[in-house]
């Protein structure tokens, strides 16, 4: 349990490095977790080679969802979009360094769902995107 709120998670929740918006941006997408009302928006800038050059997230939610968004954004800067498309659940769990039950997993995966829905240009951040 104390694992769940590892220092790294509390730290990224309280002092996120990548919170904010990008204007202009190349990709922007936002969605909610209907279970708890968490909301995340992700903005990206990419270069001519479709590599992420800048990224930010904004929104509100629990420590797990916000920390995982911050960690995710940090990790994708410099990555080609093709690689971002391949990121999955295990990737997020590795970033967080914890194991999560089914309910909290939804919090942790919200940012990745939003990110992938944006990258794929979809209208909705669905669960299939991260399985």
């Amino acid at each position, binding site marked *: 349990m104390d694992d769940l709120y590892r220092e790294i998670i509390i730290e990224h929740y*309280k002092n996120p490095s990548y919170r904010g918006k990008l204007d202009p941006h190349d990709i922007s997408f936002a969605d909610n977790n209907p*279970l*708890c009302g*968490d*909301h995340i928006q992700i903005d990206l800038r990419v270069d001519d080679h479709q590599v992420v050059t800048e990224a930010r997230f904004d929104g509100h*939610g*629990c420590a797990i969802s916000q920390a995982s968004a911050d960690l995710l954004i940090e990790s994708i800067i410099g990555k080609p979009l093709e690689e971002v498309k391949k990121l999955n659940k295990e990737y997020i769990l590795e970033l967080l360094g914890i194991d999560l039950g089914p309910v909290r997993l939804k919090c942790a995966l919200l940012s990745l769902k939003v990110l992938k829905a944006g990258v794929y240009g979809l209208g909705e951040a669905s669960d299939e995107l991260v399985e």
Partner: protein
Amino acid sequence: MKLNITEIRKDFPILERETRKGVRVVYLDSTATSQKPLQVIEAMNDYYRRSNANIHRGVHTLAEEATSMYEGAREKIARFINAASAREIIYTRNTTESINLVAYSWARANLKAGDLVVLTEMEHHSNLVPWHMLQMERGIELDFIPVTQDGLLELETYKSLLDRRPKLVSFTHMSNVLGTINPAAEIIRLGHEAGAIVLVDGAQSVPHLQVDIQALDADFYAFSAHKMCGPTGIGILYGKTALLDSMPPFLGGGDMIKEVKLRSFRANTLPHKFEAGTPAIAEAIGFGAAVDYLTGIGMDKIAAHEHEITEYALERLEEIPGVKLFGPSADKKGGVAAFTLEGVHPHDVAQILDQDGIAVRAGHHCAQPLHEKFGIPATSRASFYLYNTKDEVDILVNGLYKVKEMFG
């Protein structure tokens, strides 16, 4: 005479379980669903072990036993809310289905484009979405009795809404978030004076208050077994006989018919007209046992105990810096304490409390518009029932101090 909580807790073996080694569960989530006493579990077990058969029409011993147990439970439930007759007690799956039954059967037969339905800002989604759906389908109009910052309904605005002659007023007797006990008799009386039919969502009130349906004079009243010591999967729609008689059936199939020809049918009489297909028999029997259990203890004593716990809980929670409580003072509400803790998301609050075995709910509690009204996405909610103690409130308060420390 006060409740003997030590004895009552022996009826709920789940309250003895540990959620992790050495940590006993502190169940503060009865507003979502209550725990079930042995008396209910055993009644259902006994039915399956001794009497299981399909009800009605069967002439063999088991079928007769099952039928009389199923119908006997209906009689008990009718007496529990002082209905004029058991024929006014329709079995459904839950409160949500009861409200949908009114929306599908009564409302579709009686409402047309432009007709006004009055709801409140504190409704559970189950008393909003069926009307949204009817609005999309029919073009009915919806308007809402506002909620004050103290979590009370603005009755003056209600009176002006009634000037627009609504066809239906539908409201919750007790809010599942704020805990507010609404002045149901007055809302119903005013609605009737304006010529409206009145539906009451009683999901939170029937488990905690003595409800006298004839004194209230509600036209429809909906509630669920699982929030009052009974099983999931069974609820009630109470309706006045004349109204139920005038309504078209809801679901079609076996048991709801008197006669079926290849091209036509005649509907059964009440209450069976609204009960198509094999129902939740064991659950109905369990519901009857739950009603017996609550009656045996006494609803007045249960309400008094909950009031005492709630008063204590609100007092203790208020002491914690950063805690903000929602809803009215203890004298105007049931056993619910919804709160936020500054700087910590309710989801995290609930998760950290779980470490100490404390079960509270976090989220919008199926009342998203109400949370929007208060400008917050979610709250944590502790709720109390007959088996909760002041010691459990203390464990909750200590748990919240731990949460603050972790996020401090």
